[in-house]
């Protein structure tokens, strides 16, 4: 059986039932960075305390998006057009760019609620490669 592996280590919790994005947060000023960073990125920070690893909210709102009509060439040919790239604003004030999963792109609306989902990006003969996506939260 094929192994499910993250496309890049350290972006999200795995294995996990409810994976979250892994970020860093400055305990002094609260500035957050995704992916993880070695230092705080707030220009006002005095850097007296090191940043801590943290986990991001799994729900946010759609900030903007685009439908990418074309496929990429090798070695990124698994991004097969049309696919959707979007930016989701999390309650922490961080805007995260990621692939969007939705059945019909017409249902996407800026400001709508989105939820994190870790899912298959592509597979080869050895592995299933997982990545993070955002999908609309269906109310009700």
């Amino acid at each position, binding site marked *: 059986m094929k192994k499910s592996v993250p*496309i*890049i280590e350290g*972006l999200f919790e795995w294995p996990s039932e409810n994976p979250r994005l892994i*970020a860093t947060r400055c305990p002094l000023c609260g*500035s*957050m*960075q*995704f*992916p993880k960073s070695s230092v705080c*990125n*707030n*220009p006002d920070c005095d850097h007296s305390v090191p940043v801590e690893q943290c986990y991001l909210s799994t729900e946010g709102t759609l*900030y*903007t*998006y*685009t*439908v*990418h*009509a*074309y496929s*990429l*060439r090798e070695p*990124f040919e698994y*991004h097969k057009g049309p*696919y959707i*790239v*979007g*930016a989701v*604003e999390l309650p922490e*004030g*961080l*805007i*995260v*760019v*990621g*692939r969007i999963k939705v059945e019909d792109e017409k249902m996407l609306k*800026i400001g709508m609620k989105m939820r994190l989902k870790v899912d298959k*990006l592509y597979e080869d003969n050895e592995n299933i490669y997982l*990545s*993070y996506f955002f999908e609309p939260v269906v109310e009700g």
Partner: protein
Amino acid sequence: MTESAIVSASIMEWVEAGHPTPLLIDRLAEVTVRALREANLRPRDLDAIITNTTAIPFDSPSYITTSAQHFAHRLAERIGVKGAQCINVCAACASASIAFALADSLIKTGAIKTALVAGIDNSPRGFYLPGQSVLDPDPYAAAIKVIGATNPAYWAMWARRRAYEMGQSVESIKELMALVKEIHSKYGALNPYARYKRIFAAKDVLASPVVCDPLHLYMICATSSGGGAVVVTEMEKAKKITNKPVKIAASTVGGPIYGEPMPRLRVFSTMNIEKPFTEWRLPIEKAYKMAGITSEDIDIIECHDTSCFHTINWIDQIMGWEREETDKLIKNREIEHTGRLPVNLSGGTASFGEAVMSQAFMMIHELFRQLRGEAGERQAKKNLKIGIFTAYGAYGAYGCAILEKAF
């Protein structure tokens, strides 16, 4: 502080990207000699040669220093200089703009009197995909690998967000971008140095395939090879060289700004703190302050339009007015040579294609010719005194300058 001025500007014809011949250094040396001759200077008169590097090392499998990163030194060798400082500037789409700003600063502080700013690029073709660096794996590669977010994907996201914030439909910004292309292409057809001479109607642009919705193919610039050379001196010397010097009223260099909500190419995340496009606006504000002017003094704009959205957003940011004013300006064709605020009478990157790191030469050359009244059929009808050029690219790379007629 010493005043500085441009005394000559030459560019080469922009051509299709990706061809290794004629050699870049030969084309660069040729355009440099043209600029020196226009100024009636010799290479020995140069105190500095400042060039952009090229986009090629992005995709180079090499992890030692490459010749494409050292055009200043190679050009110095080619033309022969006596003690000129050689500096190579690498800053994506803003490389040549920053090389120009650096020359301006060195002259204004009195460190040097005469500088050659020159450069050429030969862009990779198609979507810019990252290569493999052995010693410093490119974090940009990760965004492509994980998200598939190409450069046009970011531009498209910015464009959609602008429409949303204005309460407009996506169709309306598409139509505006198509009109920008139509207008830019009219001037490209009149520019002997532009690669594309075809005049597009807005409806042709809207009929071209969608690349990243709302961006259609003809709203995105092609990739090209091109470059140019500019001679900058202190004002006193400039007045002896030419009776039509163009003063550098201000030049600024920007960079990524913390809290800019619009994701810059190709980040995974950003903190949403500042007003959208602060990263584009701040260096312009600084330049106005430095030049002692306001946006109302701007007569003409040359902006880096890697997509037609860029032109729209540049007008928003340069004018600092309600965005509806920009829409009106474009729809009323006031950005044409007969209008009240001509924009990209060079034809823009839309007509040249992007020679990524060298694109500023096309903008500097156009403003220099326009302010001197030497732009032929493209010449703005209004009386020009002050022009601005701006460039913004990957990593938040940024360069901007305000040029002023000094005769």
